[in-house]
């Protein structure tokens, strides 16, 4: 073979490798991978939030990157993580190697996100987690900043704060029960699905509930996908619990609420029930999920900030349902990534990270800021509390999801009272009132 032919082949090969390695840098679009369980409510939230972000950004002509405007292009990746974590890692590999996305948003189950996080870090790609709550995801950033600095938590705030918020809501409901029903010491049954993110929450609950003047009467751990929990409910009734502290992110939240409602179990439900955040919950429980209370991010009619109403109503108009927290891919793209890119004038992760980790911005669910740990190391974890993100307590009241918390909440005796616009009083189930009213 002639020398010139070999040179041409080498040149072509090098060009091909270069073209495959840096497509986005020379492209006119910013590719954002949206990864989640797309056949499930959580993944639909990821995708719908991202669609809204795409429409908003591209409607304005794109993101200003240096001297040119770049539109965003979404790449959908089905992680199927409820069924198989391997599917999630494969999907992550694919969007990074085949689609060569510039940024990634999404993920839901901690078990899957931990694995997906490592892959995104291998490719030094910014990954904003929009679903998993385990603190380890962000502790990794502090422990090994060089490797994990590309990860940011987008939503929800970590499980330590989730449980803290739940405790505050539980204490609020406990106080209402004590006052209205004259129960001297509220008995609490902890019912938590078997999942990794729940484990630290149970330990915290067992330790903290007695400090709130209540008594833990038992802990039940049904499977996350259990379809019949009548045996557990019988045991809970035997324990004479007044309040059931639920921690459910999966389907078990539906049969638990439905069967508890059908059996008129004389205990109120407070905590986390992700299925209960969804519009379809009422129908899925045949209306038996009435009065259950859950932590939530959005609720129609409740405004945490001035951005809440435009986002929630826009989402309802576009998709016909209330957004759940995984729809915060919208916040991750529009309010976190886009302004940081415009400020840096580049898509280079190394230049974006210092901007992203120090920025604070208003979002539809509160003010977003990122924490440092006790040693001053970046965690890329969300700040919680008054002035930042607090989430909501919502309750199903006769077919409608209503915001019931924060209602005159004081984070400390000196702190100002917080009540978001649209909050209504908490209602106790009539059969609970009937059972305990003296």
């Amino acid at each position: 073979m002639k020398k010139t032919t070999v040179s041409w082949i080498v040149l072509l090969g090098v060009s091909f490798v270069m073209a495959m390695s840096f497509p986005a840098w020379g492209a006119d679009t910013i590719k954002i991978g949206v990864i989640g369980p797309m056949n499930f409510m959580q993944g639909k939230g990821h995708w719908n939030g991202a669609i809204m972000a795409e429409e908003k950004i591209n409607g304005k002509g794109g993101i200003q990157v240096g001297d040119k405007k770049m539109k965003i292009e979404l790449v959908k990746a089905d992680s199927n993580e409820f069924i198989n974590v391997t599917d999630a890692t494969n999907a992550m590999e694919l969007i990074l190697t085949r689609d060569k996305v510039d940024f990634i948003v999404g993920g839901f189950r901690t078990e899957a996100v931990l694995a997906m996080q490592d892959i995104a870090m291998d490719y030094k790609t910014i990954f904003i987690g929009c679903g998993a709550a385990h603190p380890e995801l962000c502790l990794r950033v502090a422990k090994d900043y060089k490797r994990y600095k590309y990860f940011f938590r987008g939503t929800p705030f970590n499980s330590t704060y989730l449980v803290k918020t739940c405790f505050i809501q539980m204490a609020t409901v406990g106080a209402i029960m004590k006052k209205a029903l004259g129960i001297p010491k509220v008995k609490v049954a902890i019912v938590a699905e078997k999942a990794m993110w729940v484990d630290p929450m149970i330990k915290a609950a067992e330790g903290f509930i007695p400090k709130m003047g209540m008594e833990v009467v038992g802990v039940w751990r049904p499977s996350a996908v259990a379809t019949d929990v009548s045996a557990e409910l019988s045991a809970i009734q035997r324990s004479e619990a007044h309040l059931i502290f639920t921690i459910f992110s999966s389907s078990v939240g539906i049969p638990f609420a439905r069967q508890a409602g059908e059996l008129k179990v004389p205990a109120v439900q407070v905590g986390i029930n992700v299925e209960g955040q969804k519009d379809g919950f009422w129908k899925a429980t045949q209306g038996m999920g009435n009065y259950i209370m859950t932590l939530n991010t959005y609720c129609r009619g409740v405004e945490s900030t001035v951005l809440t109403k435009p986002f929630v109503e826009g989402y309802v108009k576009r998709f016909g349902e209330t957004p759940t927290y995984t729809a915060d891919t919208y916040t991750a793209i529009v309010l976190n990534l886009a302004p940081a890119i415009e400020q840096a004038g580049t898509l280079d992760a190394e230049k974006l990270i210092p901007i992203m980790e120090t920025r604070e911005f208003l979002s539809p669910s509160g003010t977003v800021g990122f924490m440092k740990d006790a040693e001053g190391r970046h965690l890329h974890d969300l700040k919680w509390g008054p002035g930042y993100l607090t989430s909501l307590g919502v309750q199903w009241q006769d077919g409608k999801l209503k915001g019931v918390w924060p209602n005159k909440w004081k984070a400390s005796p000196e702190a100002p009272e917080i009540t978001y616009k649209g909050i209504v009083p908490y209602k106790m189930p009539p059969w609970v009132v009937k059972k305990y009213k003296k």
Partner: protein
Amino acid sequence: MRRGTMLLDILISGLISGSIYALLAISFSLIYGIARIVNLAHTAFYMVASYCIYLGIYKLHMHPVWGMLLSVIIVTLFGLISYKLFMDPIREHEAAVLIGTIALAMAMQEIMLLIFTGDYLSVPALIDGYFKIFSVKVFYQQLLTFVVALSILAALWVLLIKTRLGLAIRSTAEDREVANLMGMDESRVTMITMGISVALAALTGAVIAPLTTLSPFMWTHPLIMVLAVVVLGGMGSIKGSFVGAYILGFAEAIVVFVAPMGAYLKGSVALSIMILVLLIRPEGLFGVVFEEER
């Protein structure tokens, strides 16, 4: 908790879970006993039946009873077509049947996922409400499941023992070749048995659907439990399936009430019991010793 009330709780919960497993396991055993078909798509038919009821009630606005009837008919026809297309041609090769039926089940799952997505759905109970037995609350629907399980067992007994079809089915189960030589249309008998088996799976779906949450993946856990029940009871033995179902149902109830923190382990404990029994009695409680050919 007082020991007496806990025992009562275990007894009632075990009877209810056992009835649900029994309904599925009996119909699974039937087709294995007759045609040696390990139909791993069995609980997928139950899943499809549940979705058909949902479709009938909410999309076609039918009364739940008519919705259930329609679902049993549709799923039975679908089961017969599936048998003719996917199982009959390969039924002599047991490994191929195993792989073929699991593929069929997964295809059904994916189709349901495409049509209904992964959103969790539910259907209303045939009989709303609950009653109390010594202060233990029991849904009427659960009582119905228990009654249906017993009725099906009785009906199957009558069919197998008192009718000519039953005689043909039992003869075929005993020895296919001899039954053929005696002039019985073995293929037809198997087809009818398959129809009965799938119809029972659909009926189970109809009875249990109001007690559960509909999802395209709802067939996997019952399949594991059904396999455990039939192996425990003895492959192909209807009586064994019935007894095995209640043993596992009680095992699950005991785990929930005695070790609430380990409630998620109830399935694993049930499967461990199955393994334990198999170690002592490999043919299962009521099964025959495995042979090359019967």
